[in-house]
Each structure stands twice: as C-alpha cells, then as structure tokens.
C-alpha cells in the first residue's frame, strides 16, 4: 500500500463579491466547497464538471496559484497549502500546469527556446550549456524539431503551441501535471495528437495528471479515476469504468445522458434535464443538485450529503467508488 502522491483534505476556496460605492463585501462565491481527493503516482484523475462548477479554481488552488481559504493540499506528505518560501519553491518543481489556451499562455515576446528554458533558469538547474541541451531534448520529446528554438509562439499552430506548453511543464521533471482543458481549444484531429502525447509521456515517465475537462469522452479516454464536480463539491468519484458504466449520483447520470452517442442510429428522444446550474453565490441549501434533481425529497435540502461508498466498499486506496447522495437506493444505484 502506497501513500498517494497528492492528497487534498477538505479544501475550500471562497471569493468575496464586492459592490456599491464603498466596495463592501456584498456576498461570497463558494468556488470550491470542501473537496477531498487523492491522486496516485503515475495515474490520472479526471476532473469533470460544467462551467462554473469550480474545477478550474480547484486546479489553480492545488498549484497554489490561488490561496486556499481553508483545507490541506499534501504533496508527497508535505502541506503545500501552508508552505512558504523555500519549501513552497521546491514543492512547485514537482507540480506543473498546462493551460487551456495555447494562444495566451505563452509569452509572445520570447522564443520557444527561451520559454522552455525559463523554468530551468528560475530554479537554477544546470549550466547554460546543460540547459540548452535539456531544451533540445524536451522539444524532441514533444515532437518539435530544433528549428523551433529560435522561433516565436505566433509562428505555430494551436496544436504545436500546446506541445510547447507541455515541453515547458516537463522542463523541471515534475511528478504531477495539472492540465486544465488542455485540448478543448484544439481541432479534433489535433486533439488526438496532443492526447496521445500526454498518454505516452505518462507511460514513459510515470507522470501523474489531474486532467480537468468538460469533455466526458476525453476524460473517459485518459483517466484512471474520475471525480464529478457540481457547484464546488465533488458529488461522485471512483474508477473510470464504474463512473461511466454504473454512475450512481443523479447528476452524473444526467451528464452521461446528455453526451451525444456519436451514432446516428442511436438518437436521444427523451426530454433532457431542465434548468441550469444555480449561481455559486446563492447555492441551494443542503445538496447542491437538489434544485434540479428528479429524485429530490425534503431531507435533501436539510444537509449537505457526505460522500459514501456505492455498493461494496473497495479496500484498495484510490479505488473507492463514492457518491454524495442520500437517495442512492431510490435512484437505483
């Protein structure tokens, strides 16, 4: 039994909303509301949810690009949420991020060589010659030639820019990469190239990923464990096959039904779930999904349901299937 590479305990992130001429706090957005999860070394956690569910904020809070309001982020046993100075600087080498938009996440005034080398300079790794050698290696790893070194990001297509972003993330040899919608801005044929690159890098280097996406087919393809988020909370989490083949939470089931089948012979006729996600400024009391859930009863609105085992508990750490719903029996999970 091994300890998880990343363990998150009861993480919260709230933002004050200011208004009026005095900019007083008029409300609070709870972007992340008590998230606990773990990522095993060499594995991929797929983090799924619709816009505004807090998945990107969660990703940024894990990297501590956002300060958590409360909770713990343990990387290899060290608390990143409360680390500072040297300790934080060192921990950050182990975790890197790949962003959604390959157009705005690369500095347009630096050459590709400078972009990929910058983390090595910041962390003072190797001599100049060693750094340049490493940059060449990295570019080759992501499928770009050395002719890319002297060119600028604007000379590359979206897919190539995403490769540059991946090369930069890999420069410090991290053990965990947080990828926030890394292929969403790319065309279908380019998407598969970047997904393949990420899968290959994981095999070769034992990288762990937190893969944030709204695209369920992509998440199904790359993930070992999947967590479903709704209004700042994880409502269901478990091994990928169980989440996709036997979803338990009513929201997960809704999401699965909303994906087009991709087969023109199998079209959905049933009317889809109505309504939209409530505002994170005024979430419903109790279960966040209660305002749209077809199985709602009064008790759902009384308290936030805890994550509980679905079916027989799996004793393997990181392989549990859990859902936050008090109506699982009625749902038929």
């Amino acid at each position, binding site marked *: 039994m091994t300890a998880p590479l990343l363990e998150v305990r009861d993480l919260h992130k709230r933002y004050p909303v200011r208004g009026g001429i005095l900019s007083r706090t008029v409300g609070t957005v709870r972007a992340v509301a008590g998230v606990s999860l773990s990522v095993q070394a060499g594995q991929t956690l797929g983090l799924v949810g619709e816009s505004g569910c807090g998945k990107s904020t969660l990703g940024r809070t894990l990297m501590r690009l956002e300060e958590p309001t409360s909770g713990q982020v343990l990387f290899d046993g060290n608390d990143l949420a409360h680390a500072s100075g040297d300790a934080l600087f060192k921990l950050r080498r182990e975790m890197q991020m790949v962003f959604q938009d390959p157009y705005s996440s690369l500095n347009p005034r630096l050459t590709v060589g400078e972009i990929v080398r910058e983390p090595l300079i910041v962390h003072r790794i190797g001599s100049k010659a060693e750094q340049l050698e490493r940059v060449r290696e990295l570019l080759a790893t992501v499928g770009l030639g050395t002719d890319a070194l002297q060119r600028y990001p604007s000379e590359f297509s979206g897919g190539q820019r995403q490769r540059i972003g991946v090369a930069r993330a890999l420069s410090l040899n991290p053990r965990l990469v947080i990828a926030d919608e890394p292929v969403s801005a790319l065309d*279908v*044929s380019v998407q598969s190239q970047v997904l393949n690159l990420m899968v290959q890098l994981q095999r070769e280097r034992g990288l762990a990923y937190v893969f944030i996406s709204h695209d369920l087919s992509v998440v*199904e393809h790359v993930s070992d464990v999947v967590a479903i988020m709704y209004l700042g909370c994880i409502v269901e989490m478990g091994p990928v096959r169980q989440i996709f083949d036997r979803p338990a939470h009513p929201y997960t089931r809704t999401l699965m039904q909303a994906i087009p*089948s991709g087969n023109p012979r199998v079209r959905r006729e049933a009317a*889809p*779930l109505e309504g939209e996600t409530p505002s994170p400024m005024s979430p419903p009391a109790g279960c966040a999904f209660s305002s749209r859930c077809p199985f709602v009863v009064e008790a759902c609105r009384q308290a936030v349901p805890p994550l509980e085992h679905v079916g027989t508990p799996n004793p393997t750490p990181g392989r549990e299937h859990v859902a936050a719903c008090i109506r699982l029996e009625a749902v038929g999970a």
Partner: protein
Amino acid sequence: MSADANPLLAIDNLQVGFDGEAGRVRAVDGVSFSIAAGQTVGVVGESGCGKSVTAASILRLVPSPPGVMLGGQIRFDGRDILAMKREDLAALRGREIAMVFQDPMTSLNPVFTVERQMGEVLALRFGLGRAAAAERSIAMLRTVGMPDPAARLAVYPHELSGGMKQRVMIAMALLCEPRLLIADEPTTALDVTVQAQILHLMRELQRKAGTALLFITHDMGVIAEMCDAVVVMYAGRVVERRPVVNLFERPRHPYTHGLLRSIPRRGTAYKALLPTIEGTVPSLLKPPPGCRFAARCQHQQSLAAESQRRCAEVDPMLAADGDGWVACHFPLNGATS
C-alpha cells in the same frame, strides 16, 4: 443527399476569397450542396475549412472588404440570393431565413431589453403591436425553456447567463417562423446539459414547423444526433456529401474516415493511442495543385507511385458514387475500422 429537383436552398460552385497583405485566400473554393424543405443538413470540418464563410454567404454577411465573392450561385426557393437587391435581401433575412451564432452577443444588442429586441422582430415581420408582441415573446421564451419568461422581458442581455442568451437568440430566430434556420456552432459554448436542451428544442420545433436546418459544426456528436445528411469540408472544398448513417458507417473519403476515427468515444480502449491525422492543413494562399488532403493522407501513402503522383497533381472533382458524393481519386470502399 436526395436528388431533389426543387431544393429549398441550392449552393452551386460557391467561391469566396479574402484579400490580405500576403494575397488572396480562397476560403471557399467551389462549394456545392442543397437542402430540401424540412431537412437537416450538417456542414462539418475543422477551423479554417470554410464552413462558417459558406454559412455567412447565404445571408450575404461576409464583410467586404476584405471578403470578395468570386463566383457561384446561391438559390433560395429559386431566387438568386447573390444577385438580389438590398431591399429584397432585407425582406429575406429574419423572415424566411434566420441565423443563430456561437456567440449570442453577435445578434443581441446590449443596450436594448429582451422585450424591445423580440418586439422589433415581430413588428417588422408581422406588424404586431406592443401588447401582442409581448404575449408572443413570452410564449416563445417559454417554448425555448426559459425559466420565468415574463420577468425576462425587462432584462438586458448582460443580465442573462450564456445558456439563457443563447435561448433568447434562438427564440428571436424562431419568432419569425423561418423556412430555413442556419445555426453556426449554436451549442459549442454551452454546457453538455444545456446543449442537450437546445438540440432537443430545435428538433421539436422542426417537427412542428417543418423548418429546414443547416448546422455548421466541428462536433461529430452533434452531427450524428441531429442531421439527415452531412457535408464534409476540407481546405475550402467539399470532400464528401452523404446521408448521415452512410457517412458514419461507410465514409469513402480518407479525411472523413480519419476524422471519425480520431475522436475518443465510448468503447475506445482505455489510454490506447488514438488514430491521428498527422500534418496540417495546406495554406489557402497557394493551395497544392492536386488533392488538398494528399500530403496528410494515409490511404494515399499505401498506393503505387503512379497513383500517388495522380493524387499530388490532379485535383479530384466531387463525383456521385451511389449514395453520395466524394472528391477522391481512390475512395475507400470498406466500413469504418
């Protein structure tokens, strides 16, 4: 695609260019297809393939300059749209043909309330007064699944969420009861659950009103869900046209085949490498003389040298092949693997 003698919309050899510093880009280079009344046709392709320019050309919305109409015909119900006078075109827009866009703010005016914008459509189209227009607007907002529709009339677009703005735009497009609704990536910016709602709604309205739909999208899932027939575009050209089931099950153009295979879908082996289409789209400033897909075509690479030369040198024409049309010298003949 049916050999309909009197299609509602017929696009024939459409050519649209854009003039820039580096020269003229032929964004749409000889596109032909048609839509019958009540039919749903999807145009699919990757960014820069010319699908949105084709859609915009139908309502003559391509900005000029830099856009230039280089040739071809667009006939709606027999009338030549490209040769139409401005006032006739204005009468067509929003009455017989309506359009919804990916970004609702391209069709909503930020300084007017929802009531004023919807009312304007109804006043122009049916000459309705304020009270009658409000009543009809509320009914349509309810139809498109807007919660609390009466209260929404007084709000401005920025007060609505993305999904609600999209609904207002679709409601406005449907208010005029068009015979053809052009939807350019109408659900791309929406969440999957809201996308499912909007697609369901469009299908319901089509069933009731017999509206023809033209779907412009890069999403094969939406195509499979919604369309009767599909037009696949690549680098400004139509490479394949076919009824939807035939296209998904027996694509004959190697590009269509590659596109369908590269999408991760239910049942693809977990973390298996996905088939890819290597390389990039050729520049439309100076397209290659032969098949535009040849440099990336795996099928072509398996052919004899002489055949390969033909792909590289001779431009393949779109030709009928039984259940559809394909522009390939050596089309595939099997099922999707």
